[in-house]
């Protein structure tokens, strides 16, 4: 079992005092990011990415992934106490979590949410430990055509699985690809799409886009709603925790199902948000207490939280083993790898063993540390939430500006951030999904390179994407994913006809 030896080595790396320190800092920052409006996982990590430039890649990724775990945990707090989802994936948690808080069972709801998050993450990390090396060793055989096919599959499943209208998803994705193409073309060395503007020579940095689209856009949306925090108080003591823990094993079936839904949705780039909704919906249909869902049923907290955290964690599997991130936050982490000089993809498992296994080991420990921190710090966090928005908003905006500036030490990027912010606000209001735009912006250059290299090898024949069993099956999977909603509709019609 070579993997276990590697994993133990990874634990040794993670347990170095400095790495434990950055882990705790990361978790605390992440929870703050998760509870504050306008600072989500993706743009929180993007803002803090420049602070890691001077660290070793392993410490840097531990800090950033821990911010991500913290944000996943933190999202539940606002949903349950204030009925305000701090993150989109915790919307489903409000359905039963907030009614529980209104009935005075906030402690139980929070404990259930945190514990389920932890279990979901643990399940996904175990899956990553077992599956990622296999996927990576399989992917080592990929040529340019196979690489492009994997990107194709990833983007097609976005179109097929997202709940937004498919052509809005495609528009948003293609805008991302177009923005990625701006600047110097790596293959021919030509400048393109710059139209003579020197500011565009280096193209659009996806970190700026993430900070603008998610950070500024979110603040503008919140301003429009004229948000007022109506505070709920929460106390968690050991008794509540133990009592809730004793009641949780009853829902093992819901947990397991949510774990599997979460892992599946996280690996395909559909992400944590649909996973939490789907898991909630299925739990509601299957549970014998299904009728009480929405009125404060603890199972209605367990299902979405488990799935969301499992999906958020599983999104790192394709990022590590294939170089295709499963969520916007994973995309930002992938951008971090490039900045630290690591090439994401299967070669990581061969060349950067310490990095990969240190990261995987830190996922186990980070989630455990996260669980302990959130369980003990809820009163403090609830107090932070009572700071009015008119103080929080300008501070977050300033932090976004600092984050945008430090990416390239360029003041023009702060202006770009504002442009992306307004764009994000309008697109979000018009139901255009933002995640495909960000993913396309991150992967655009790599996808294009794989595409052009494959065409070069085939003298321009598109047949290269169906030239062998492997590449054609990935492409066909992609086409199925692309037309998934149409296929589903066809099935329902077929089934409806004989009846």
């Amino acid at each position: 079992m070579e993997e276990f030896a590697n994993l133990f080595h990874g634990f040794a790396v993670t347990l170095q005092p400095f790495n434990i320190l950055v882990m705790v800092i990361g978790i605390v920052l992440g929870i703050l990011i998760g509870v504050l409006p306008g600072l989500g996982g993706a743009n929180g990590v993007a803002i803090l990415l420049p602070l890691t430039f001077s660290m070793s890649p392993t410490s840097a990724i531990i800090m950033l992934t821990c911010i991500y775990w913290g944000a996943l945990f933190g999202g539940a707090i606002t949903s349950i106490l204030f009925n305000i989802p701090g993150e989109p994936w915790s919307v489903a948690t409000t359905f039963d979590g907030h009614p529980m808080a209104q009935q005075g069972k906030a402690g139980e709801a929070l404990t259930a949410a945190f514990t389920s998050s932890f279990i979901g993450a643990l399940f996904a990390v175990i899956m990553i430990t077992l599956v990622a090396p296999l996927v990576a060793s399989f992917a080592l055989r990929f040529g340019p055509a196979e690489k492009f096919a994997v990107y194709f599959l990833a983007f097609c499943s976005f179109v097929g699985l997202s709940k937004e209208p498919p052509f809005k998803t495609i528009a948003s994705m293609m805008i991302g690809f177009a923005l990625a193409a701006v600047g110097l073309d790596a293959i021919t060395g030509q400048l393109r799409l710059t139209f003579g503007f020197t500011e565009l020579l280096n193209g659009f940095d996806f970190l700026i886009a993430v900070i603008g689209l998610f950070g500024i856009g979110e603040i503008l949306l919140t301003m429009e709603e004229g948000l007022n925090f109506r505070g709920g108080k929460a106390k968690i003591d050991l008794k509540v925790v133990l009592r809730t823990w004793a009641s949780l094993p009853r829902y093992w079936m819901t947990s397991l199902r949510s774990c599997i839904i979460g892992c599946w949705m996280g690996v395909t780039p559909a992400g944590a948000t649909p996973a939490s909704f789907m898991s909630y919906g299925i739990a509601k249909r299957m549970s014998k207490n299904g009728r009480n869902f929405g009125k404060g049923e603890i199972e209605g907290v367990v299902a979405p939280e488990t799935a969301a955290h499992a999906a958020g964690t599983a999104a790192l599997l394709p990022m590590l083993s294939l170089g295709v991130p499963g969520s916007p936050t994973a995309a930002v982490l992938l951008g971090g790898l490039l900045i630290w000089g690591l090439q994401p993809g299967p070669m990581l498992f061969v060349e950067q063993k310490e990095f990969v296994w240190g990261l995987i080991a830190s996922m186990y420990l980070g989630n455990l540390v996260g669980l302990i921190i959130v369980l003990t710090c809820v009163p403090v966090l609830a107090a932070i939430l009572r700071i009015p928005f008119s103080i929080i908003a300008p501070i977050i905006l300033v932090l976004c500006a600092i984050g945008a500036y430090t990416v390239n030490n360029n003041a023009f990027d702060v202006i770009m951030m504002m442009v992306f912010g307004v764009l994000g606000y309008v697109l979000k209001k018009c139901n255009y999904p933002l995640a495909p735009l960000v993913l396309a912006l991150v992967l655009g250059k790599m996808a294009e390179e794989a595409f052009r290299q494959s065409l070069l090898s085939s003298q321009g024949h598109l047949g290269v994407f169906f030239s062998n069993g492997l590449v054609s099956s990935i492409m066909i999977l992609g086409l199925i994913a692309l037309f998934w909603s149409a296929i589903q509709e066809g099935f329902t019609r077929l089934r409806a006809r004989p009846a």
Partner: protein
Amino acid sequence: MNTHESSNAGPSHKSVEIAVAILVMAFGAIVIFGSTSVGIGWGAEGPQAGFFPFYIGLAIVISGAVNLVNALRPDAASGIFAEWSQLRQVLLVVIPASIYAVAVGYIGIYVSSAIFIAWFMRWLGKYSWPKVAAVAIGMPVIVYLVFEKWFLVALPKGPIENWLNL
């Protein structure tokens, strides 16, 4: 999309959808134009620089057109995009924040942040001046200590920082 019906008027959702779809198509057209000017065919080193973006631009125009048709359909989502009062609220942030973003390049991030926070808290939050001053000055000072002293990341500075020799 708008669940809360209100007497307040605002731009209709339909008109904004149409405008966004047209803007998306215009963006696609720019991409196509830019691609053709660097060559979209087959060159000595394989596909030319504009080859990939050209088809991307084409896809943007097509998907924009489909969205435009969908928005024009009579059964498309009705209601308003946002109330004028809500849009005013949004503009109250967008305009000063844009001025702030431009100012960062000229007077540095510390002074502009302090002014921006002070404006926001005083104007929108109606806080007393001592509270405003505490946050507006405290936040840049903390940022200065964390970024410049602790993480050694230089942030943009203006004449005042130069004068203080920071």
